[in-house]
């Protein structure tokens, strides 16, 4: 019998929330009581009060994670949650009659072009197999501002449409002004074409969803008209670097329990993660356009992380938001290394902190407030942990120093009738029991994970490495929080890397110099003033000292490949026969991109030189009315400079301006092909030599010494 969300009773919901939050409250209360008890019997000092307040804030976060897993584990044990949106339709349900118009939108920004379009192709082919392709259109919404990406996207779009005979079904839109980044891109789609579609499935550039799941999501929406949004649980895939493999293994083994626990309490008030989700467009367009924040600084009024707010607005408008966490077939990729991961966190941190404004806004659902609170705490907890550690260390050092009798290491820990030991035990239990339960649940089906032994070894190694990485991450999160709150720009000069390269050790030290510096200072201070605490804080100190080495090692694809060969961190999707065809398709076809234009200024060169790319690009540029003379003169001066002095004479913005101007590109194309080699700038002459060589002709007069 299928689940009917509309028949959920208030009592049912209240019972679930009472049990879940009651458990968190009780656990946090118990922890706080144990800590209070551990403080000196003669009363609590101001420093201890500060610790107690911080502890309550932090311990509730750990307790929430723990109870999510416990409730998730219990629901899994009893055969899965009955109250889940995926059960509102039959397992083999298909749409009857004409499928509703659904747009699959991919906002992209300087992404790996080949990977994006392979993903689209895989999903198209998957939908074809379901027989429901007719209901779906794809929109690739580009905000890319790197010439090589923009040009590559246009050619890839054209070639894909040709290959799949999908003209008029797969669309490409390049925004001239990328206002409000991703959320602005999606809103722009909604304003232009949203009213043509009933549903929109939002993807990330690296998302892949199986055709079957895409069709099922539409069926779920059709079955439940009160539902405004269904989020799926994307599984990480395609991990090659050790870092990616760690993450995808963790997300495969632990995430299902967290997800099941989340669904247990929030039911129809789920969160939205910004991608791999289906949205009912009408209410989304009517109610979910992002408001401006009441920040006096106009640059900070735009909401950076749109998803959580959109879910809250959808709920505020009276529509349900569900989490289809048991549905297989939703995938994304993780960052390849710690540096990229922190680069992403830097952006997310600002977005999540902005959500604080909504925490006390009237009309926001309680569940959404809790999502917002948890999102804020993901980052805010780091400075709080750091403060807690500092306060705790200072407090213990003072106690040791002033206590005449406490000359033994760790004496301060045992002066409260063992409360501290219980507290430590409880904290470790809250942190590690979830992993243990996830492991227990996975062991019976451990074969695709490399067998029970390797599964356990992978879990152990993953736990050790994350335990060591966590202190460094805490420092960076603290930096992000403090700088964001102070309204300062947070610099992070990491580049998006392919799996193959990874970080060199020197580069890793250049990026991650802060944790070892803090580690050395902390170790020296502790050695001098509180040597008895060194053993207690050893995991944190080791994490700080080893951060650059760990970041370097985990970024290596070779280490990831080694782990895969030894069946460590394996997930079922890495076995061809168990992976969906869509994933296999992308994996099998990656790495065939033509590297011909892969050099500095290759994008501009391609637009100017390659007649087909040039033609496609110019044909796709929207014709603009006449520009003022001033603009025309400026563009004319730029194009002359480009051809006479080579591309390094222009900055990125100037290159970009020329690429938007068809007249300039035509002129440049004509000049490049019409000028005798002797009259070309050496850089362009080298490009001409390359083109000539590539088509099987060569001319010694074209060769110069300059290299791109």
């Amino acid at each position, binding site marked *: 019998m299928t689940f009917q969300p509309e028949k959920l009773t208030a009592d049912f919901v209240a019972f679930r929330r009472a049990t879940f939050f009651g458990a968190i409250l009780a656990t946090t209360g118990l922890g706080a009581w144990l800590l209070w008890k551990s403080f000196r019997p003669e009363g609590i000092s*101001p420093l201890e009060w500060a610790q107690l307040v911080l502890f309550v804030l932090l311990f509730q976060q750990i307790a929430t994670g723990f109870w999510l897993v416990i409730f998730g584990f219990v629901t899994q044990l009893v055969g899965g949650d009955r109250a889940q949106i995926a059960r509102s339709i039959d397992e083999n349900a298909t749409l009857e009659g004409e499928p509703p118009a659904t747009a699959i939108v991919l906002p992209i920004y300087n992404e790996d072009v080949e990977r994006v379009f392979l993903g689209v192709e895989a999903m198209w082919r998957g939908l074809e197999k379901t027989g429901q392709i007719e209901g779906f259109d794809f929109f690739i919404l580009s905000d890319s501002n790197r010439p090589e990406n923009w040009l590559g996207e246009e050619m890839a779009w054209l070639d894909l449409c040709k290959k799949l005979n999908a003209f008029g079904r797969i669309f490409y839109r390049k925004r001239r002004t990328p206002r409000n980044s991703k959320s602005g891109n999606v809103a722009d789609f909604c304003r232009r074409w949203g009213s043509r579609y009933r549903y929109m499935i939002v993807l990330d550039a690296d998302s892949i969803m199986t055709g079957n799941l895409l069709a099922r999501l539409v069926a779920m929406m059709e079955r439940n008209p009160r539902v405004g949004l269904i989020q799926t649980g994307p599984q990480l895939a395609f991990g090659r670097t050790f870092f990616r493999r760690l993450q995808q293994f963790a997300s495969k083994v632990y995430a299902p329990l967290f997800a099941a626990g989340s669904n247990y309490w929030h039911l129809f008030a789920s969160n939205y993660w910004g991608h791999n989700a289906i949205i009912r467009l009408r209410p989304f367009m009517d109610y979910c356009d992002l408001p401006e924040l009441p920040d006096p600084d106009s640059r900070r009024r735009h909401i950076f992380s749109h998803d959580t707010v959109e879910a809250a607005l959808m709920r505020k408008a009276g529509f349900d938001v569900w989490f289809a966490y048991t549905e297989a077939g939703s995938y994304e990729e993780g960052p390849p290394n710690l540096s990229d991961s922190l680069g992403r966190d830097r952006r997310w941190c600002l977005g999540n902190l902005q959500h604080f404004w909504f925490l006390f806004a009237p009309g926001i659902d309680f569940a959404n407030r809790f999502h917002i609170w948890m999102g804020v705490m993901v980052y805010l907890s780091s400075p709080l942990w750091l403060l807690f550690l500092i306060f705790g260390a200072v407090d213990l050092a003072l106690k040791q120093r002033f206590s005449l009798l406490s000359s033994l290491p760790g004496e301060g820990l045992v002066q409260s009738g063992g409360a501290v030991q219980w507290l430590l035990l409880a904290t470790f239990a809250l942190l590690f029991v979830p992993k243990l339960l996830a492991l227990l649940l996975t062991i019976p089906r451990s074969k695709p994970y490399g067998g029970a032994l390797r599964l356990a070894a992978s879990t152990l190694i993953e736990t050790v490495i994350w335990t060591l990485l966590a202190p460094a991450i805490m420092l960076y999160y603290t930096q992000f929080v403090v700088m964001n*709150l102070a309204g300062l720009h947070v610099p992070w000069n990491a580049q998006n890397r392919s799996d193959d390269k990874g970080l060199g050790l020197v580069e890793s030290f250049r990026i991650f110099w802060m944790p070892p510096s803090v580690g050395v200072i902390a170790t020296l201070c502790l050695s001098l003033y509180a040597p008895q605490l060194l053993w207690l804080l050893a995991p944190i100190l080791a994490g700080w000292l080893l951060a650059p080495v760990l970041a370097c090692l985990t970024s290596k694809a070779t280490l990831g490949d080694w782990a895969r060969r030894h069946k460590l961190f394996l997930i079922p999707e890495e076995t061809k026969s168990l992976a969906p065809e869509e994933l296999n398709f992308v994996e099998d076809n990656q790495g065939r991109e033509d590297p011909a234009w892969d050099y500095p200024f290759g994008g501009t060169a391609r637009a100017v030189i390659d007649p087909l790319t040039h033609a496609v690009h110019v044909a796709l540029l929207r014709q603009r009315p006449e520009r003022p003379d001033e603009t025309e003169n400026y563009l004319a001066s730029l194009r002359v400079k480009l051809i006479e002095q080579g591309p390094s004479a222009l900055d990125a913005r100037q290159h970009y301006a020329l690429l938007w101007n068809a007249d300039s590109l035509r002129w440049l194309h004509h000049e490049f092909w*019409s000028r*005798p080699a002797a009259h070309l700038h050496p850089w362009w002459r080298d490009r001409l030599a390359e083109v000539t060589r590539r088509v099987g002709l060569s001319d010694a007069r074209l060769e110069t010494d300059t290299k791109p």
Partner: protein
Amino acid sequence: MDTVTPQSEWDEALARLLAFFAALEFGGIEHRTSLAMRLLSEARERHSENSGISPVETAMDVASESLEKWFAQVLAESHLSPANRVAVGLFAVRATNAGTVWPAALLSDLPPADLRAALSRVSTRTGPDLAITSMTSRKMDYGAMQVIAQETWHKFAWAPILRAAGIWTAIFFAVLFAYGRLFPQ
């Protein structure tokens, strides 16, 4: 016959034409070579009338004009400007695989009817018909936070708050230190 221009310049012009047509990926070597030779001969004639322009430029001008004329004949869309016609035509060539399907058709005097039909069918539109809808944000009441921000600080900024927090933290530790010194246990 031009006797002043060195042969090397005409060789360069031929090489340029061959490279250009090869980059267009239209047809085989034989067709591209004969095409280049034909255009080169036209270029020689034009150059004899105006030898101030280099052979390479003359040859490429001839090639561009030939493409414009040919696409004007092949494409059904008449509203295109000559400059844009070549771009749209080559877009259609790429979209239909015309270079492979009709390898000897480029710049031919009598382009095949099915090629013309195929190229004319291609549209450069990258999106469906617009269906403009208004999507504007609703006024958001931020409640207590906004009230606190406006009524307490008037101009809400984090920097002074952090500075104040820093000062209070320093005072806290100073008092704590003094307390420890004054009342040792």
